[in-house]
């Protein structure tokens, strides 16, 4: 049977601790559900380390553990908590190799979810990390992608921010790019938006629009694949970067890099520029299938008419 992303995370974490004498740090790890079933059910003696509620200090404690080269995993239950957790990681762990030639490898599992959970718990926040040096950012949504992230972490000695999404945990399927030479528009989705992008593409194609998909797994470093570049240049209207974070961060930056490379137009979609509340009417959700369809039609129909 195919494995879910959830199972892969749990297995990988368990093996990582056992094989590398490593540690998993986090808050309330053994609480009901073991972080969506992704954390192996181990004891502190076996390497599952409960931290206190001191989130800023916790980032520092994990950075210190990173210096020991035990390659700790740090679980941040809601990506919004990075506002506190990220400060010492970004300013120390990420700079340690460059300034002092002392690597500080940490595998940070930042977990996103959304829907009626208020202003700080929802969505992805990888943009917090994005502008800083010394960090890799990856957003795996499939079992194989998760293994790519982990293997890269083990092969190198970088701080890695893994922008997870609970919406992917039950996924067993790989998500492929869909590209050819005569597309109207290409979607460049990140994180959970990749699933909606697939659905939007199917609907749009039923109506005769030609939509491509280029899945963004690596956010930093962001490498524009040759086949993406070629397909964009040959497309009629360029592309749209889709994100589960506010657009004034990763999405706009990647769009800028794509514009520079291809000289084509790019738009961005992500969270709206407002705070989220605790109800369906006040949520701030990533672009839905319907919103993506609407945006694609706007771009294609408006420009198509010119």
């Amino acid at each position: 049977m195919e494995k879910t992303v959830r199972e892969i995370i749990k297995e990988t974490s368990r093996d990582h601790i056992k094989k590398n004498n490593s540690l998993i740090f986090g808050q309330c790890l053994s609480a009901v559900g073991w972080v969506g079933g992704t954390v192996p059910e181990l004891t502190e003696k076996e390497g599952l380390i409960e931290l206190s509620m001191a989130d800023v200090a916790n980032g520092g404690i994990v950075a210190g553990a990173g210096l020991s080269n035990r390659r700790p995993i740090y679980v941040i239950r809601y990506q919004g908590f990075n506002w506190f957790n990220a400060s010492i990681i970004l300013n120390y762990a990420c700079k340690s190799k460059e300034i002092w030639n002392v690597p500080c490898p940490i595998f940070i599992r930042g977990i996103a979810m959304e829907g009626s959970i208020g202003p700080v718990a929802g969505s992805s926040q990888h943009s917090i990390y994005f502008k800083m040096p010394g960090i890799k950012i990856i957003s795996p949504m499939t079992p194989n992608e998760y293994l790519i992230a982990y293997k890269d972490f083990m092969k190198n000695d970088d701080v890695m921010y893994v922008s997870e999404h609970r919406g992917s945990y039950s996924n067993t399927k790989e998500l492929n790019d869909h590209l050819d030479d005569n597309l109207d528009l290409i979607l460049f989705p990140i994180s959970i938006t990749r699933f909606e992008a697939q659905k939007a593409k199917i609907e749009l194609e039923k109506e005769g629009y030609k939509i491509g998909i280029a899945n963004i797994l690596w956010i930093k470093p962001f490498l524009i694949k040759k086949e993406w570049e070629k397909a964009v240049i040959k497309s009629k209207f360029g592309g749209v970067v889709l994100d589960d974070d506010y657009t004034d961060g990763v999405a706009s930056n990647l769009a800028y890099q794509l514009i520079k490379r291809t000289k084509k137009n790019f738009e961005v979609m992500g969270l709206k520029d407002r705070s989220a509340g605790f109800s369906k009417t006040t949520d701030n959700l990533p672009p839905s299938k319907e919103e993506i369809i609407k945006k694609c039609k706007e771009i294609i129909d408006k420009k198509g008419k010119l």
Partner: protein
Amino acid sequence: MNEKIFRLKTFEKASYCRHFEEEVIKNLKLKNINIPTYVSAGQEFIAASMATICEDLKIKPLIFGQHRCHSIYISFGGDKVKLIDELLGRKTGCTKGMGGSASIASKEINMFGHDGLMGSNGPIGVGACFATNHPTIVFLGDAAAEEDYVLGGLGWASTKNIPLITVVEDNNLSILTEKKVRRNWEMSDVAKSFKMQGYNIDDDPIDLLKYSEIFFKKPCLLNVNTNRIFWHAGAGKDSDDTFDRYEEEKKRLGEDALAIDKKIKEEIKNLWKKQLEK
């Protein structure tokens, strides 16, 4: 260790620190050093005592200092020539010109660098100590110790019962703001409330030695009252009558100390001269 021998050994380390800093001051004034420089003269007996105690215990701890760290580096055996080069901004410096005065490090002596955000070394030291279970010393200023994340880290260190010593070099000042303006509590009391051993003492080497029995067995905190002779950064003085532990110890130890002082003064002067000529 015999008290006299301990004092002399510590004085010798302190003397290296003091004469090094005297040269730093000179070269700041001459503009040979052109970076923000945090001189530790006046406070050197804290690091010197801790280093002497560690040598005696045959322990090579992990060390996490902050910006005012020349004395820590020198006392624990950091390469002085490399520190001179670092202050002169050379690639041959202990951190290849990246660390300056405030962010120096040395793998040889297990000293980790500081990022410039006051107090970050608190929780980082806690994490390194926890993950390695290796004796660790975190040196903080009395202001850095106020950072919320320092307190969070200390509480966790106590809970996990790790071999950590937190030394607060309490010079009473945050740049120029006195402690009494910033807070009405003491770090030694904070430590106690976290159920760790906490003491408020002077920087007399013997005061530090007294507590060495508890070192690295359980987490503990020493708030050590001391005096900064020079400005927060740079070569100026706020006052000419700041108490100077170095002079006090020199007087107490007499001839032996005078001989050490003279010899080391010459040695450090020549070291700087040679490096400046390069």
